[in-house]
């Protein structure tokens, strides 16, 4: 068992989420930075769908009553840097402040064993279910470990050449649309030429950005289904970029959509960070995906 001594700012249990249930209003969820989460599981030799901890801004302090192997990836913390560490029984693992970056992943060999709800162990904030407790972790929670392993742990730290950045300024690649019609012909070009700034209004549902040097005009539209990465433009000209726990439909037109390979970047963005969007096509998006997912095919 793992005891939660201090829960940190906003620590939730996540896995690969529950895509495919959007028609019931259920967001896909799962780790916001899918790449860092996947690497954390790789480092301890877990199966890719093992549940782990997603820590936000300040991580938890954990204590185990058995020897466990943990891995820490994503936003930078002092205790470990994209590597597996042995936690001896009775000792504690203090994740502490996360910076640079916003979200740090803690995988423990075997995965965290909480009930599967609607196909996933992930906590869903919009529905207050999953993640074992139907809420973020709290001090005093006890976590049981599973047996969801896939291979031997990796001894070396994950190579820096095979990591995504966790610090801005961010260059984020987008594909135009789907509601390109709702905007003036050059709106996306103007957006791509302008620096956007991350506001303090950020969570797993999405990030609000402001573009002080640009005023986009947009009317509300008939409610449409939306995806993670969608960049919605509100009637006041603000931007909302949807993340994994996004609402499943919305009435703000979407000017462009962030490519899957770059979604982890937005999961690490902090208030005040600068974001620049660069427009690409589906071929470039596929290339970016192959590059990042290729990093996971390391020789063991």
């Amino acid at each position: 068992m793992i005891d939660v001594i201090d829960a940190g700012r906003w620590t939730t249990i996540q896995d690969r989420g529950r895509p495919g249930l959007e028609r019931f209003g259920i967001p896909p969820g799962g780790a916001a930075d899918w790449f860092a989460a996947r690497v954390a599981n790789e480092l301890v030799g877990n199966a890719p769908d093992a549940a782990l901890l997603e820590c936000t801004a300040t991580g938890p302090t954990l204590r185990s009553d058995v020897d466990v192997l943990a891995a820490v990836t994503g936003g930078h913390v002092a205790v470990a840097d994209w590597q597996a560490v042995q936690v001896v029984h009775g000792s504690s693992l203090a994740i502490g402040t996360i910076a640079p970056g916003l979200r740090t992943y803690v995988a423990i060999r075997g995965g965290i064993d909480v009930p599967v709800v609607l196909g996933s162990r992930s906590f869903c904030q919009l529905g207050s279910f999953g993640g074992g407790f139907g809420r973020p972790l709290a001090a005093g929670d006890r976590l049981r470990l599973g047996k969801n392993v896939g291979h031997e742990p990796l001894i070396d730290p994950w190579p820096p050449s095979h990591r995504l950045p966790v610090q801005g300024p961010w260059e984020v690649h987008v594909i135009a649309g789907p509601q390109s019609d709702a905007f003036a012909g050059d709106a996306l070009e103007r957006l791509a030429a302008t620096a956007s700034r991350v506001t303090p209004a950020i969570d797993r549902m999405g990030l609000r950005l402001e573009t002080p040097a640009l005023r986009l005009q947009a009317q509300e539209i008939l409610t449409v289904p939306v995806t993670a990465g969608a960049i919605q433009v509100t009637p006041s000209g603000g931007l909302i970029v949807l993340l994994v726990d996004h609402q499943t439909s919305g009435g703000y037109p979407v000017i462009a959509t962030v490519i899957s390979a770059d979604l982890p970047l937005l999961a690490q963005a902090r208030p005040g960070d600068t974001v620049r969007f660069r427009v690409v096509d589906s071929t470039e998006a596929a290339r970016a995906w192959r590059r990042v997912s290729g990093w996971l095919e390391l020789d063991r």
Partner: protein
Amino acid sequence: MWQVAAAGDRALLVTVGTVIDPSLLNEVLALDRALQDRRPSGLLGTVPAYASLLCHFDPAITGPDRLEETIRQLEGTLEAAIPTGAVVDVATRYDGPDLPQVALKTNLTPAGVVERHAGREYLVYCVGFAPGFTYCGALPEEIAVPRLASPRLRVPAGSVAIAGRQTGVYGVESPGGWNLIGRTALRLFDPAADPPARFKPGDRVRFVPIP
């Protein structure tokens, strides 16, 4: 003519119209069913709403052009898909905090608003936004009012609300910008149920006032 647009690198959005219209929902549901029957390779899942269908695909198996071609082949070939099921009564206590304001804005009494909202049949156009949230329409023009200027951070589950020509019921406690006119005890979302949402697009509902 359907509009097919990329929604990122692993989804296409098919838009069949831009207004609330039963025949457009019909087209969306017919396309949805046809895709579920045919299972084009690489199609992972679909999400219907009012007049559009989101199609998630695996880019390792198919591409946006190939999937669009499959979808385009279905245009004009589809038959009606809305099932003519029973109308479900949604017992509603009309005591929502925005009812007096809605009455003021529409030059009606609160009872007049309730009378126009209840006792008629609505089509479920979409389940989305948050778990179990059920979008219904179309609301009579006489009681159509805009969304709240600033959304509430917390709207209780079961809240019956209106915005524009839409009426809806909140499935879980969530933020929300619609005008709250009542509340139902009907459970619209249950993660342990199959399916987890009480309604689906194409269902019919009627709001029945209870004291």
